[in-house]
């Protein structure tokens, strides 16, 4: 068996639904091709939109002439930034990161300047998609090219070309007099770092670089917008959060949220990249101008060049430890590329850099740097993978220098309940120690790795996981089933993991719950499917709705049995009172005949992190002839709190690991000197295929989250974090070379091995 569930000592093993593996509710649709994704929609009278995009990485837009395009038969409307209301500086939280609407509007359609190759400049709607693309080519844009800045360190220099003439660094220090590309400088400090390093016997400081990578969802961004004559706007779209799309649309188009309906279709992957709007406002404006529904679907190169990759980074991490293996101090200097607009993922990166360890003294400096690349976005545990690569490689080197086993060294210093992170929060009960111990107990760890050019690596990772707002309603049907209405778009099986919590609470089966993801007019506000929050927070709402139903069922039972509600008891879904007894289903049938409809309601806004930790153990073989790294064996261990549906928890762990492996070994944006991405296709942006990976073994640890009735923590994001350093540490053991740059692609590895053998 590849999957082990470590013994659960936290929660009673009395669940009937939680921890089982029912077939998910939407799977028949998804294995027969019936599930409806946005591009599958053909709204009557629909027309098609296409973008005009900047061919320059940085250019002033001198003029845009749409007249030739508009003369083409079948072309119905064109659109530029002049069609969007003037934006104003307003910052809003979209659940997994904040947005400034002035920047967002300028990203949707460039104003005055194009800030990256592929930046949308104009758009057109026509009666067919080929015609729309031809018309886009007829829109004449005159540019005045400007020098571009493409790497974080260059962009931070005083003489770098400026993207935004008025950008003054947001900092705790004195406000700078001159604008720069540094949007913000964040600082965290704990203890006295100089004292900490003075107490260390060994201090190691290293510099790290990582390349820009993309979330790589298979479904491109796609929307259909219908701006009706009554002023109401309806958008069918592929999004992680229908309500945050509504919020962004209302701000960008300056209209009330009540005039906008967002219909979330099935979504073909997101990983943080389908939260910000791109094509939605443009489709809406085109629809308003031509009076017909407009569909815009991006091509794959547009997805790579103009939607949120996650940033490249430059990092310096220094750690000190005593000779008996106790960390004494840490110092991190982190510069992340934000892309063309401020607000990258440096914040969480800076908070996560030392998050796995109990460090008495630490400082962190983080810089949010704009440059001529697409605006970066969240990607699964945004920022944490970058910093884990740096910290976990230094930790490994320290352990080696101190001649301490890498897992023992981590156990010596692991964050636990009561540990204060460098950014302030003190952990409640967390499961990093248990994960490390589970790895020590695993068959993988106990099986020695032998053979030439092979090595084994370990690394840890952390992600906060958030709470945020969720709403559900649950309608009891006359046959005793329950329809669960929710606003969380389902990317990876959350319909089922949420339904299972409702079922467990009510004492019915998972199959007796019919989950429905509905539009923004049909359910209460619900934040994004992101931050690993959905099974936790929307599950919490479902639990609350179930308790609400139970209360109403008790009242109806009392009425039927002619007793007081106080005399009705409920256990395992069986209601008893006045000497009578009915199951939930039977009581629902009776209640339907005599009582008012039973509708449960659950609304939550938990203000907590659920704190996920993961540990990887990986064996690699490095081909000295080519530099290719083959993953021989891979184990991921993670604290799930409580695995509601273990198959889908494993699925998150395996999928996150695969993305982390891709990031470690192959994925990167190659930029030419002109600032053009050279590999904007799935052929050249090399994501792992089936043939590149082994089975990914999973160990689920369950240290119950004290803030959830079933102990759930989020599971979605943290598994992407440890693979790059775990693989770097394994490659070191295989080759004797330490790597400080991602990806560790064959040419990089080959050059490093060659340099070592030739003494360079």
């Amino acid at each position, binding site marked *: 068996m590849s999957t082990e569930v470590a013994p659960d000592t936290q929660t009673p093993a009395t669940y009937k639904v939680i921890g089982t593996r029912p*077939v998910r509710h939407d799977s028949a649709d998804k294995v*027969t091709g019936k599930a409806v994704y946005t591009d*599958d929609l053909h709204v009557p009278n629909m027309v098609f939109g296409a973008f005009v995009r900047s061919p320059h990485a940085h250019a002033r837009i001198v003029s845009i002439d749409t007249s030739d395009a508009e003369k083409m038969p079948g072309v119905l409307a064109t659109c530029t930034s002049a069609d969007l209301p003037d934006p104003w500086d307003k910052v809003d939280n979209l659940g997994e990161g904040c947005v400034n609407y002035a920047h967002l509007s300028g990203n949707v359609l460039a104003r005055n300047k194009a800030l990256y190759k592929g930046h949308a400049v104009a758009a057109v709607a026509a009666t067919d998609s080929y015609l729309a693309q031809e018309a886009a080519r007829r829109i004449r844009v005159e540019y005045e090219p400007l020098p571009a800045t493409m790497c974080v360190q260059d962009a931070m220099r005083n003489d770098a070309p400026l993207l935004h003439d008025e950008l003054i660094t947001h900092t705790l220090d004195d406000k700078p007099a001159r604008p720069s590309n540094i949007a913000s400088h964040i600082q965290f400090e704990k203890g006295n770092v100089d004292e900490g390093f003075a107490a260390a016997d060994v201090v190691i400081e290293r510099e790290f670089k990582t390349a820009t990578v993309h979330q*790589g969802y298979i479904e491109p961004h796609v929307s259909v917008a219908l701006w009706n004559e009554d002023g109401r706007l309806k958008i069918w779209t592929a999004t992680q959060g229908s309500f945050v799309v509504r919020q962004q649309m209302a701000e960008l188009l300056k209209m009330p949220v009540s005039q906008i309906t967002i219909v979330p279709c099935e979504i073909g992957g997101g990983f943080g990249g389908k939260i910000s709007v791109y094509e939605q406002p443009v489709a809406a404006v085109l629809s308003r101008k031509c009076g017909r529904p407009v569909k815009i679907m991006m091509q794959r190169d547009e997805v790579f060049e103009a939607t949120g990759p996650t940033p490249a980074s430059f990092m310096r991490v220094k750690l000190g430890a005593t000779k008996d293996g106790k960390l004494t101090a840490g110092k991190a200097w982190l510069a992340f590329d934000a892309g063309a607009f401020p607000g990258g993922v440096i914040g969480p990166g800076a908070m996560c850099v030392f998050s796995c360890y109990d460090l008495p003294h630490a400082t962190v400096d983080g810089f949010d740097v704009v440059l001529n690349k697409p605006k970066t976005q969240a990607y699964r545990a945004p920022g944490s993978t970058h910093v884990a690569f740096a910290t976990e490689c230094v930790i490994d080197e320290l352990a080696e220098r101190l001649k301490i086993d890498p897992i023992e060294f981590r156990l010596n210093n692991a964050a636990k309940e009561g540990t204060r992170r460098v950014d302030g929060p003190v952990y409640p009960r967390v499961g990093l120690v248990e994960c490390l111990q589970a790895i020590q107990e695993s068959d993988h760890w106990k099986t020695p790795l032998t053979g030439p050019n092979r090595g084994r690596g370990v690394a840890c990772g952390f992600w906060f996981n958030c709470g945020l707002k969720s709403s559900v309603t649950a309608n009891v049907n006359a046959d005793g089933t329950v329809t669960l209405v929710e606003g969380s778009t389902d990317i990876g099986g959350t319909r089922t993991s949420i339904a299972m919590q409702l079922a467990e609470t009510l004492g019915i089966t998972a199959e007796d719950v019919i989950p429905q993801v509905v539009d923004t007019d049909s359910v209460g506000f619900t934040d994004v499917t992101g931050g690993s929050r959905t099974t936790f927070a929307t599950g919490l709402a479902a639990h609350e709705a179930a308790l609400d139903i139970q209360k109403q069922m008790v009242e109806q039972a009392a009425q039927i049995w002619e007793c007081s509600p106080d005399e009705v008891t409920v256990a395992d879904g069986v209601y008893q009172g006045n000497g009578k007894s009915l199951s939930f289903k039977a009581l629902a049938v009776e209640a339907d005949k005599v009582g008012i409809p039973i509708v449960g309601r659950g609304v939550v806004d938990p203000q907590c992190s659920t704190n996920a930790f993961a540990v990887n153990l990986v064996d690699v073989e490095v081909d000295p002839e080519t530099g290719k790294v083959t993953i021989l064996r891979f184990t991921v261990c993670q604290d799930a709190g409580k695995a509601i549906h273990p198959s889908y928890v*494993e699925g998150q762990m395996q999928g996150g690991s695969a993305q982390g492996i891709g990031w470690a070994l192959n994925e990167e944006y190659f930029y030419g000197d002109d600032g053009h991405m050279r590999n904007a296709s*799935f052929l050249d942006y090399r994501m*792992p*295929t*089936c043939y590149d990976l082994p089975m990914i073994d999973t160990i689920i640890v369950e240290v119950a989250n004290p803030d959830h009735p079933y102990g759930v923590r989020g599971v979605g994001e943290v598994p992407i974090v440890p693979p790059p350093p775990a693989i770097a540490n394994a490659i070191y053991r295989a080759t004797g070379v330490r790597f400080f740059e991602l990806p560790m692609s064959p040419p990089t590895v080959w050059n490093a091995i060659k340099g070592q053998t030739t003494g360079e």
Partner: protein
Amino acid sequence: MKTHVTTTINGATVEFLCQPRQSLLAVLRDELSLTGCKEGCNNGNCGACTVMLDGLPVDSCLVLAVEAEGAEIETVEGIAEQGHLHPLQQCFLEGAALQCGICTPGFLVTAKALLEKNPQPSEQEIRFGLAGNLCRCTGYDKIVRAVQAASQASPES
């Protein structure tokens, strides 16, 4: 100018008119409402649009619709028979071999072709056979296991 094409799709004769530049994917989805095959890249790299063309799995985005003249095409919509899921489909749903589901139709078509050619493939043969289909959610583990389970469930075993 449109071209008239007669073809067989999932066992039924189908006629359609298409522009010479339209891909088979575009016609299946936009003209014939067979939206089970998905567009992920439109240049033959992701496999989400895989269909069977005269017994071979192809990226339908790389086939011109006019090339379907006289051909036999099978799409994901044709895999289940008369309301019964194919063992592969059953194994995918029981084995949790999908998350977002956008790549699933392409994987099912490719895997079915693989098993028809090689009813008892090894893990490496499965991985090689499915390497033209990208999945970004699952890490492939449960997909490979589902195909293994289906190969064991098939009557040939």
